[in-house]
């Protein structure tokens, strides 16, 4: 009888041991998952620049930092295509367009202020600086080795002068008048701006045509007439892309994987290259405006 009791106790002890072991395994598994989740969350926060709830004192600094970080990330994204002279040309033209628009708005604002008998000397000085930056952008060589550095510096200068103009204007006018002028200048345009837009459209189509040509080459069916139609504006990029996706979907999974690997590899390379360029520029103090 005593033997039976001892055996039963042994069974219970074994079961308890196994249970403890299972609990330990489960706890550690959940702990690892929680840790991964936390890390992913912090990565996501960095990538998406989501605003965190901080105290009121640090909120402004936090917002400035977020804006700066978002600006740098945008720039990093923009310079990815600048490894070719065509990509560099497009980015410089896009910067030119942004500057033309801001100078145009700035000039119109100065005119409005003059009519209101407001002293506009400081604003005009900033506009002259912006015009200097625009001239430098126009003379920048997209084929030069340092075109990326030049682009980043000029973009930073443009951003700084624009902010300077905006801050100065806020000291001169009340919010209501600023809002009224802003509304008036909403759809402002001129020939220079239109001309710049046309150039951008032309070079972007050229760039996309090259990309499509390469992709169709990978698929093994280059449709040059379709690409010419796209270049001339007879078909849209979406239509060509739709045709390309249809071809890709008809391929074997091995071939599809090969294409995916090739594109992915290229995207990762350009991402890393852009990131390193930005890092190097930050190290050498060229990433925040100011000419070399």
């Amino acid at each position, binding site marked *: *009888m005593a033997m039976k*009791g001892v055996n*039963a106790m042994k*069974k*219970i002890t074994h*079961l*308890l041991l*196994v*249970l403890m072991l*299972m*609990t330990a*395994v*489960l706890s550690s*598994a959940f702990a690892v*998952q929680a840790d991964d989740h936390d890390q992913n969350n912090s990565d996501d926060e960095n990538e998406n620049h989501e605003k965190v709830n901080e105290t009121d004192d640090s909120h402004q600094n936090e917002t400035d930092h977020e804006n700066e970080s978002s*600006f740098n990330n*945008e720039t990093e994204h923009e310079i990815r*295509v600048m490894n070719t002279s065509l990509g560099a040309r*497009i*980015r410089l033209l*896009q*910067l030119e*367009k*942004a*500057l033309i628009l*801001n100078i145009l*708005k*700035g000039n119109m*604002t100065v005119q409005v202020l003059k009519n209101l008998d407001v002293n506009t000397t400081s604003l005009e000085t900033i506009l002259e600086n912006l015009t200097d930056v625009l001239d430098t952008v126009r003379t920048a060589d997209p084929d030069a080795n340092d075109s990326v550095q030049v682009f980043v510096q000029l*973009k930073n200068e*443009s*951003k700084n002068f*624009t*902010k300077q103009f*905006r801050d100065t*204007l806020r000291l001169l006018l009340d919010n209501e008048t*600023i809002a009224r*002028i*802003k509304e008036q*200048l909403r759809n402002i345009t001129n020939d220079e701006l239109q001309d710049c837009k046309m150039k*951008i459209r032309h070079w*972007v*189509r050229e*760039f*996309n045509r090259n*990309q499509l040509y390469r*992709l169709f080459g990978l698929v093994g069916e280059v449709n040059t007439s379709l690409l010419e139609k796209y270049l001339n504006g007879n078909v849209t990029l979406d239509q060509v*892309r739709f045709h390309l*996706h249809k071809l*890709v*979907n008809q391929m074997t*999974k091995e071939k*599809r*994987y090969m*294409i*995916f690997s090739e*594109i*992915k590899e*290229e*995207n990762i390379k350009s991402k890393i290259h852009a990131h390193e360029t930005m890092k190097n520029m930050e190290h050498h103090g060229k990433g925040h405006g100011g000419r070399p």
Partner: protein
Amino acid sequence: MEKVMEADRNMNKKIISLLFLLIVMISVTLSYAYFNQQTSSDDNQTGSNGDVNQNTLTTEIDSLFLDENQNIEIGDMI
């Protein structure tokens, strides 16, 4: 004799309860392992049969093109 039988029954009940608990724990562990495996395979852009996820491929291809209307953000003047 009756007391001994009663003690045996109690012991068996305990063993069955522990076994039941053990089965529950094992089920939880297995479900967790299965769920985790599924999540990581979702993260890997390819399906279990080695095929490329359609959306991933489309996204990668689309990222190669530039938008004609894209603007460079330098901020607003006003």
